[in-house]
């Protein structure tokens, strides 16, 4: 527990919480000791695997096998950390750069890949672009592209849990760019007034696509916003997964204890491009990228594990090979599956398909049967 939990008055701290230095030196041994060594290894393996998945997916997008992809390279700790820190009954509202919450919490890997292809087994039935998955069994809410809309929704879920007396917190994720949206301010304000057990996890990765932090806000830290809304605010080294776990655990305890919400600002860096449609070489320097590459969340945890004799180059290569084979194989399987059924265009608009949609469905079926449609079924 950090000092700012010693009082129920929300406190804002902008001193970044760290557990491990970029070179793997432990700064907070007591906290490291709270996490079993097997879990540290599992978290490292998961983040390394994620880096491999992201790398392979981008390559396959370049080959034309995926329509689109968004990697979390450099920000792995910001989704695997919170996923590890929270509990099964907690609710997650991802933005679109948090695959770790899905895969760590047990979304089937093949379903995650099926979403990238939009095939018949895609959890969202091929209705959204890649990286817009859903995972109901894991309490992970479906993803939308407009940014920040999930923030007040997360507050609503948090409030609902509190109303029902459930011991659940709700966490939402967003980038620092999204902190300019009205929904961010509205959501934090509602959470403050309602003392909702919500966690606002801001990945401050330096850029909103190409827009740098200093053009997003004149405030020195996003976490300072918490003060104006009467909620806790914390800054954390977002590339230090143990520190991320620590602040998310504290925020969850704060919420479960009935004290309300916390805004966490994780200082990190989007080593990846924004998406496969982006080219960061046009708006940032190689020096800056190299600087952050040294502060990579994988490097420091690996260094620590190696000093403990828990990891070595052979395990590294084995993990890379296995992850690569896993993602390539799953993608092959996904590509072999047919498109979603035509029904899926008209289902789930409402609980039951109304007459006008049934009529439009018949119209579409007749058009396809005529052979005049631009769509070729698979």
């Amino acid at each position, binding site marked *: 527990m950090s000092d700012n939990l010693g009082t129920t008055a929300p406190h804002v701290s902008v001193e970044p919480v760290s557990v491990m230095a970029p070179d793997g030196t432990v700064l907070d041994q007591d906290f490291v000791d709270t996490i079993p060594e097997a879990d540290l290894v599992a978290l490292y393996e998961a983040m390394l695997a994620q880096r491999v998945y992201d790398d392979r997916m981008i390559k396959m997008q370049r080959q034309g096998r995926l329509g689109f992809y968004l990697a979390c390279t450099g920000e792995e700790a910001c989704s695997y950390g919170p996923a590890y820190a929270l509990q099964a009954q907690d609710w997650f509202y991802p933005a679109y750069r948090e695959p770790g919450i899905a895969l760590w919490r047990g979304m089937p890997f093949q379903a995650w890949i099926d979403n990238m292809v939009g095939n018949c087994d895609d*959890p969202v039935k091929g209705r959204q672009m890649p990286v*817009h998955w859903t995972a109901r069994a894991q309490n992970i809410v479906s993803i939308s592209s407009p940014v920040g*809309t999930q923030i007040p*929704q997360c507050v609503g*879920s948090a*409030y609902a849990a509190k109303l029902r007396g459930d011991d659940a917190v*709700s966490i939402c994720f967003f980038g620092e760019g999204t902190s300019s949206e009205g929904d961010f301010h509205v*959501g934090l304000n509602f959470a403050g007034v309602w003392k909702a057990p919500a966690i606002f996890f801001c990945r401050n990765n330096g850029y909103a696509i190409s827009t740098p932090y200093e053009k997003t806000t004149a405030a020195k830290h996003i976490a300072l916003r918490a003060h104006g809304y009467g909620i806790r605010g914390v800054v954390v080294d977002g590339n230090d997964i143990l520190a991320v776990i620590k602040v998310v655990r504290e925020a969850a305890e704060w919420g479960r204890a009935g004290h309300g919400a916390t805004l966490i600002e994780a200082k990190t860096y989007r080593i990846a491009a924004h998406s496969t449609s982006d080219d960061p070489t046009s708006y940032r320097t190689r020096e800056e990228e190299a600087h952050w590459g040294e502060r990579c969340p994988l490097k420091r945890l690996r260094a620590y594990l190696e000093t403990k004799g828990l990891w070595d180059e052979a395990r590294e290569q084995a993990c890379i090979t296995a992850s690569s084979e896993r993602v390539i194989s799953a993608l092959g399987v996904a590509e072999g599956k047919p498109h979603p059924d035509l029904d899926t265009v008209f289902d789930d608009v409402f609980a039951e398909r109304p007459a006008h949609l049934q009529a439009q469905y018949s119209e579409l079926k007749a058009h396809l049967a005529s052979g005049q449609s631009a769509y070729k079924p698979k």
Partner: protein
Amino acid sequence: MAKMNIIQAVNDALHLAMKSDDNVVVLGEDVGKFGGVFRATVGLQAEFGEDRVIDTPLAEAGIIGAAIGMALYGVKAVAEIQFSDFIFPAYDQIVNELAKYRYRSGGEYPCPMVIRTPVGGGIRGGHYHSQSPESLFVHHAGLVVVAPSNPYDAKGLLLAAIDSPDPVMVLEPKRIYRGPDHGKNWGSHPKGEVPEAHFTVPIGKAAIARELTGEGTPVTIITYGAMVHTCGKAAEEAAKEGIDVELVDLRSLQPYDLDAIVASASKTGRVVIANEAPRMCGYAAEMSAVVTEHCFDWLEAPVTRVTGYDTPFPYTLEFAYLPDTGRVLKALRDVATYA
């Protein structure tokens, strides 16, 4: 049966819903202690507490966004937007989130909740307390939109909305909250009789507010909300001129009752469609297309719209702007005499 006006019917429905189900929550600006600017939520907070009848901060996107989160979690939120003119900060939450949740999540995350909001002019409210935005919401697949015209339907549709597995917007005709027309309250109106028990009006079913008498040239009027009463009055006037009106009160705008529309339009062959909103892409435009597509062979006259003008809603001249009985009557004469 009790005598109720629309506000009382809404209030009664909310009381019943909250009493029978702890899972129902009401939220909005001034809905709690004060009971809402139109008094629709009076008494709820005293009975059900501040946790279930929530005075929210003044932010529509927050009201709807939070209600969505509650709905996803499994709590049934009934959100009030004080005037539909103020709904637009929540437009993104409504059309990009609420409307699409079930679909975009492959059916994993339905989002059943209710938005109540007063619509329409005639209360001296200028353009920010008078608009009729229904066409902006029926356009977005995934939203159920209903528009009651009387106390009976206001209660029955609201209870149906609360029971619905889909997100439902209830557009309440604010100028007839307390009476069907100027100077007249609901006390003597047959639809002012409202059962005290729980009942629902089926979503997607129109009502025939006035049946053909068999005397005169038959004409169909298709309308909803407060315009039902304007059109009803026009129908009485028209009867004196040998025009026999069947008045279709749609009640539900999405989904709408195609069978009732086709049945009436193909029977009369002469159709007037009335809505308060501006003409351009208004709800009447869709109804006009529907009638033309489905009933062309029966039509004896061009489908004719009576609507608001394509201007912002004016203040001083609002009763010049609003479609009135005289404009409906003229449209009835035009289609009845068309040859």
